[in-house]
């Protein structure tokens, strides 16, 4: 696979354990008690979006559901709130993956922003239907910061796949 479909460079295949390790680290980051600080990105949503765009065969709605439940428990949120939103996110990310991968990482992040906003919108709607108060517009900042992190994430998470097995200047790997 290439970094993007336009790229001429070929990546090494992804390691499954690395995908789940990165998701687990994201879960750990999301458990950091930042309280009501606005603009903290939703790490798990971001990583789920990233891997379901890049590796449609590995990360899908099932992964989204499991990690959603784990986030729900850790945050003390309503059970199924994140799970529902992440299932929809991974579905949407899988669906747009073929198109999004034709773009450069910066352009990809612009297309991911609506997906992340969608996640938050789903959660706001679900909780407000259940009678919670509106958390204020600052809540949606975390999607923006998440989208801004897309470019650095693109390089960090693909780093293991950039490593060639043995160096050969005549091979485009």
């Amino acid at each position, binding site marked *: 696979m290439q970094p993007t479909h336009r790229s001429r460079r070929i990546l090494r295949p992804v390691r499954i354990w690395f995908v789940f390790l990165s998701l687990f680290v994201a879960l750990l980051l999301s*458990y*950091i*008690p930042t309280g009501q600080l606005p603009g903290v990105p939703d790490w798990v949503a971001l990583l789920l979006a990233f891997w379901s765009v890049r590796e449609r065969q590995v990360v899908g709605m099932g992964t989204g559901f499991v990690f959603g439940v*784990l986030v729900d428990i850790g945050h003390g949120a309503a059970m199924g709130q994140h799970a529902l939103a992440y299932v929809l996110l991974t579905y949407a990310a899988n669906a747009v993956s073929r198109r999004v991968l034709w773009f450069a990482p910066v352009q990809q992040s612009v297309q991911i922003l609506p997906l992340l906003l969608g996640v938050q919108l789903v959660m706001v709607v*679900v909780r407000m239907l259940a*009678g919670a108060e509106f958390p204020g517009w600052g809540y949606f900042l975390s999607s923006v910061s998440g989208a801004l992190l897309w470019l650095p994430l693109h390089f960090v998470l693909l780093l293991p796949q950039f490593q060639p097995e043995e160096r050969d200047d005549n091979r485009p790997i």
Partner: protein
Amino acid sequence: MLVADLHFRYLEVVRQTLSVVLYPVEMAAATPAEFVSNASKYFATLIKVQRENREMRRKALADAERLLRQTDLEQENKRLRGLMAMSERISVTSVAADVLYEARDVFSRKVIVDHGSQQDVTAGQVVVDELGVVGQVTRVYPIQSEVTLLTDKAQAVPVRVERTGQRGVVYGAGEGMLELRYLLANADVQPGDRLVTSGLDGLFLPGLPVARVVSVNRELQAFAQIVCEPVARVGHAAQVLILGRAQPAPERQVPPPATPKD
């Protein structure tokens, strides 16, 4: 699943078990935040500490006078109570707990404290700081518990206006304020009135200070809109006290079903 959790609370067992498994992970995640807060505390200015010290000394002095009279009053009280054959006031168990962190759920106002079911905390207990009621324990994990703050929209506290004895229910209204609901527009409530728990629900102990009335709007239809602010440092309290009744509240008297006359 959402409905099962929010409305019927069926999923508590799942939540409990998974939360125990996740506890070390959560603690590991909490470490950096703790480090930052510890560092900021360390660099807090000396002036602040000195000011705090001075204030505490003044407070200790003010309390000393009251303490001196306390034993005397207690004895007198006991004698009088004996004379009047009044029932003993409800005895109270209390556990001091540290607030670990604010829950990350942005849709509610909750904090996590470091005592759980292993320290005999049960759901429904009242949480206070030195000024007044902070909230109520809503969910108990084995080593932690979740306290819903007064300012949460779903939290209701039965109260009494201290000046008039008028009873009512206080709800969270968002943005750190409370609302005293369902009082008629002509109810005798003024800005500055203190609200204390009425104890009618059998969970909250009676007489704990809850809030102070800030504004009363009688222009609306049937009910007055009464905005209050909490007395306690809701949301900033670092140490809290979890109060529980030493003996369970008396069973509610259920009137026997009326036998239909034939």
